[in-house]
C-alpha cells in the first residue's frame, strides 16, 4: 500500500447526465479517483475512502450534507468544497464550477483547489532503523515479549511498543515472523542464532 495520500473528487448531483459529464471531464484533472453520488448521504456506502477530497456539489447539497461528509471523509486528509452551478448565470469565481464552463476550465479550477491540499508529510519510510530500533528488532526475533524487551533495555513497555510501530512503518512489515525474516534477510541477525521452526 502506498503512503502517499490520494487526491479524489466527489461529485454529487441527482442528474446522471451531469454526473457522467463531470466524471468524463474530470478525468483530465489531477484527481486519482472520481466518485459519483446522487445524494450526499450515499457517502455511507463508501466507508473505506481515504486521502484528500474535493467535493463538487450544489450549494444546497453542500449546506445539507457538508457536516456529514466532513465527518466521514476527514479522518486522515482534508476536505474542500466547490459549488456546482447548474444555471447559466455568469460567474467568475474559482470556487464554483458552472454548467457551461469548458472542460479545461473545470479541470483548472479543480486542480487549483487540489494543489492546496497539504503535501504528504513524508514519514520517511525508507529510513534505516535507528540503533535502538535495531536492538528492539533483535530481541523481538529471539521471541521476547514487549515486557521482557522493556526490562532488558531499561525502558517502558510503552516505549517498546512505539519502537515496534516505527519498525513496522519503516520496513512495511507487521507480523513478528515477518520481522524475523526481515532481520535475517537484512543480515541484522544470523539465521543460525534463532529457532526458525518456532519463529517463522
Amino acid at each position: 500500500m502506498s503512503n502517499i495520500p490520494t487526491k479524489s473528487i466527489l461529485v454529487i448531483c441527482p442528474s446522471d447526465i451531469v454526473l457522467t459529464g463531470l466524471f468524463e471531464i474530470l478525468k483530465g484533472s489531477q484527481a486519482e479517483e472520481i466518485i459519483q453520488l446522487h445524494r450526499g448521504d450515499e457517502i455511507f456506502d463508501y466507508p473505506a475512502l481515504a486521502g484528500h477530497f474535493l467535493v463538487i456539489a450544489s450549494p444546497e447539497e453542500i449546506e445539507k450534507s457538508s457536516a456529514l461528509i466532513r465527518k466521514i471523509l476527514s479522518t486522515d486528509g482534508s476536505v474542500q468544497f466547490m459549488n456546482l452551478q447548474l444555471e447559466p448565470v455568469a460567474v467568475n469565481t474559482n470556487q464554483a464550477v458552472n454548467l457551461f464552463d469548458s472542460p479545461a476550465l473545470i479541470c483548472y479550477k479543480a486542480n487549483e483547489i487540489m494543489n492546496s491540499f497539504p503535501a504528504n508529510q513524508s514519514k520517511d519510510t525508507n529510513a534505516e532503523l535507528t540503533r535502538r530500533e535495531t536492538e528492539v528488532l533483535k530481541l523481538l526475533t529471539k521471541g521476547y515479549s514487549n515486557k521482557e524487551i522493556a526490562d532488558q533495555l531499561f525502558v517502558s513497555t510503552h516505549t517498546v511498543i512505539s519502537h515496534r510501530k516505527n519498525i513496522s512503518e519503516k520496513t512495511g512489515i507487521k507480523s513478528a515472523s515477518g520481522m524475523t525474516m526481515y532481520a535475517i534477510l537484512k543480515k541484522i541477525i544470523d539465521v543460525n542464532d534463532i529457532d526458525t521452526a518456532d519463529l517463522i
Partner: protein
Amino acid sequence: MELFNENNKLASVIHKDHSLLPVINRLGIKLGFGDKTIRNICEEKGIDLNFFVETINVFHYEAYFPEKRLLDFSVSMVIEYLLKTHKYYIEYLIPENDRLIELFLAANPAESAENDLVRRFYTKFKDEFVIHMNFEERVMFPYILELNGAILNPDLRDAFIKKYPGYSIEGYEKEHSNMDDKMDDLKNIIIKYLPPNYDQNRGNAFLFNLFMFDKDLKNHSRIEDHILIPKVKQLEKVLMSHE
C-alpha cells in the same frame, strides 16, 4: 470510479475489470455470455440480481461497501458465496500459489538459506489460513445455518437452544488481521527485501498471483466481518426475543 449496474453488458464489465472473473464464476456464471446484460444473465440463471451487482461492485472498488444494503441479503446466500470462495482458494488459488513460489525459488538454488525462509514463512501463512477455513466450514457456518433455521422454523428452536446453550457467535469469531498482516508482509519481503539475483519473470508471476490472492482474501474477510457476523448478531437477538 464507476460502479457497475444491472444494465451493463457483462462482457464490458469483464473488459473493464478482469479480476472479477473468479467472482462471477462463484456467482454461478461461466464464460461465453455473449452480449447479455447483467440483468439478462441473472434472470436466466435465477441469480439474485442485487446480490450479484453489489458483490461485483464491492470487489471492484475497495472503498465501496454499502453495509446497510448488504445486510439485507440472506445468511444462506452469503454463506454459499463464502463457501464457493473457500473452494476456489483450496482447489485453485493455493495450489497455484504453491506451484509459482516453487518455480520462483527453484530458479535461484544458490540462495538456499533465503529460499528456505521464504518457503517457511509462506507455508506458515498457508497452514494458518487452511485451518481457519476449516474451522469456519466445520464449526462456524453450520452454527449460523442452524441458527437461521431456528429463526425460520419455530419447531427447531428448542433443539437449537439445547444444542447451543447460551448461543453466541462471539465464541466462534476468528481474527482476520493476523492473516492479512502476514499476506502484506510476504508481498513486502519479496518486493523490497529479496536478494537481487532471482528470476524476474518467475518472481513477477508469483507476485501477480499473490496480489490476486490478497485482494480476494481481504474482500472475503470483509464480507465475513462486516456482513456475516453483524447479521448473525441480529439473528441471535431475534431468537433471544422469542425465548
